[in-house]
């Protein structure tokens, strides 16, 4: 789960990481009121995609009236297709220099990785590509965590002034604490700005491990469903994993790897998948029905293809769900069905006996071709 900048900064504040004076606004009037209190401000679009600065989603405002005007502009815009619905009105700081601090999960080392760089304010991946020598990192022991001397070692590479280096290492230790205690897979300050008031986290990013949300109900509560995300959330409630794409072939698959391979195969033969959908291991008829509902609410979908390789998933369960869904719902698009694996004979028989208009296919390749033929391109 990605947190918004303002949410991440709320957490930072709780942990004693210095952040600018700021407040969230959902309309221009609110922005004006906040600016009246703070003074000169930066109005920042709150969206979960990168590159908002380049897209014009961050604007300086000299006066409260100006803040209202800028908020009005930003609140109306779309950034990478996502409408901006809230802005952070944040104290404008005089910046002397910008650094980077981050903690991520290093999959290769199987440990956390703490990184700092004097090149802040830009995409850290960019720095990694262009000047990797400007990134300093180490891997703390996951059991003992980041030790103070390790934090100092990194931060003395950031600032020559020992007082600043100490200040930075105290912030880095707090950031590590945030990483651990929010079960983050990424916690980042970019930039960490040196201002006339000392070091301040001007921007913040936290990605929380979805698998750990069960122990962070307070974070789960912060979730704000974005337009377009409703279906993904509904899917999740039914134990399905769904991601909308732009094509017209809806697919229902068991298993994430097979679901990806299914999308790839549709594309390989010249079609366009409408979605990624993994119905997971155990598939009750209810789940299959929920999957159909989600797919068919996408008006781009012109054909539905079930690609099931039964393991834990039993083909008869899927067939039953399909029959139930097709009988109760008004399904106007053709349905292609590939059932292989556990209880495939039972599954096929259920479909045959139902006399429903489905197109059975014997293999994944045949399924892809049939779906493309029926769904058009």
């Amino acid at each position, binding site marked *: 789960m990605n947190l918004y900048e303002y949410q991440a900064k709320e957490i930072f504040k709780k942990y004693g990481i210095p952040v600018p004076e700021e407040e969230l606004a959902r309309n221009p009037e609110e922005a004006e009121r906040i600016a009246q209190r703070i003074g000169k401000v930066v109005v920042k679009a709150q969206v979960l995609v990168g590159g908002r600065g380049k897209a014009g989603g961050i604007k300086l405002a000299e006066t409260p009236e100006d803040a209202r005007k800028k908020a009005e502009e930003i609140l109306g815009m779309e950034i990478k297709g996502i409408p901006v619905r809230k802005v952070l009105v944040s104290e404008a700081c005089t910046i002397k220099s910008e650094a980077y601090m981050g903690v991520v999960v290093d999959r290769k080392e199987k440990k956390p990785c703490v990184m700092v760089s004097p090149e802040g304010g830009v995409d850290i991946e960019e720095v990694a590509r262009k000047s990797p020598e400007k990134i300093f990192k180490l891997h703390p022991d996951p059991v003992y965590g980041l030790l103070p001397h390790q934090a100092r070692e990194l931060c003395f590479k950031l600032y020559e002034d020992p007082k600043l280096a100490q200040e930075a290492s105290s912030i880095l230790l707090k950031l590590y604490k945030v990483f651990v205690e929010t*079960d983050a897979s990424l916690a980042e300050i970019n930039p960490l700005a040196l201002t006339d008031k000392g070091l301040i986290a001007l921007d913040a990013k936290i990605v929380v491990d979805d698998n750990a949300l069960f122990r962070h109900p307070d974070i789960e509560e912060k979730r704000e469903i974005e337009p377009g995300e409703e279906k993904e959330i509904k899917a999740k409630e039914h134990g399905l994993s769904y991601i909308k794409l732009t094509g017209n072939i809806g697919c229902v698959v068991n298993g994430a*790897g*097979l679901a990806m391979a299914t999308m*790839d195969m549709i594309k390989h033969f010249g079609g366009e998948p409408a979605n990624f959908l993994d119905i997971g291991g155990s598939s009750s008829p209810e789940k299959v029905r929920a999957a159909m509902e989600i797919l068919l609410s996408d008006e781009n979908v012109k054909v539905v293809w079930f690609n099931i390789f*039964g393991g*834990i998933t039993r083909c008869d369960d899927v067939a039953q769900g399909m029959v139930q869904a097709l009988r109760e719902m008004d399904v106007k698009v053709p349905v292609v069905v590939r059932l292989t694996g556990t209880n495939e004979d039972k599954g096929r028989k259920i479909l045959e006996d139902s006399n429903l208009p489905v197109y059975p296919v014997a293999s994944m390749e045949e399924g892809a071709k049939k779906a493309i033929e029926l769904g058009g391109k």
Partner: protein
Amino acid sequence: MGVLVGKDTRVVVQGITGRDGSFHAARMKEYGTQVVAGVTPGKGGQEVSGIPVYNTVKEAVERHDANTSIIFVPARFAPDAIYEAADAGIKLIVTITEGIPVLDMMKVVKYLDERGVRLIGPNCPGIITPGECKVGIMPGHIFKKGKVGVVSRSGTLTYEVVYHLGVHGFGQSTAAGIGGDPIIGTKFIDMLELFRDDPETEAVVLIGEIGGTDEEDAAEYIKNTSYPKPVVAFIAGRTAPPGKRMGHAGAIISGGKGTAEEKIKAFENAGVKVARIPQEIPLILKEVL
């Protein structure tokens, strides 16, 4: 023969009284696996499909000489179950459980590494040496004894590939699903090493997917060690959008890293042929063997 599991494998099933645990304990036993005991704390003394249940793994090991564990315990209790297996002297732990927090797994992996315990998974279908032993949830009947080692980050996609291998007469020495999470115990490289030293394995099929750099690392390993056996790869997720988690917790393209193109390129640079669709895999195998 095969690797990691075989005729000498003696399995304890942790979480055996649960829905999945009891179902798959019975399937493994039917397959011919020596399932010697089960563990569910508080349910010691019961039986599941004729398998005795104990309160602790330690007891199961002492009474039945179990050397391998398979874990069906729910995510929030699974790390403790893994620690328990390691402390009881189990040397191979297969964790089927999906949804274990990443920070927990980093500690678990370190604990096991320090004790020389091997972990397969988590979030995996398990491992099978056809005709000998199945420690997992895969449909046993599609696997056939043979000479191809299979290693995969996915479950059902493995079945799909194995099915096509079977159609063309390729059996498997061992097939391992290593898991779809960001932090896993056994990686592609570890399996490649095991297959290299296994006299029965003549070729390896590697099934990867987007996210992380394990495939790139495997490609580099193959190149640097002049890997002595042919490897055929398949990468799922060529059409996956960036920034979205594709079902598996580990299947996400982040910051432009972890794309299928990069992985395919890495393999091709290492001289590994990459199939574009699963049914191409046996055809390529025929060419290289």
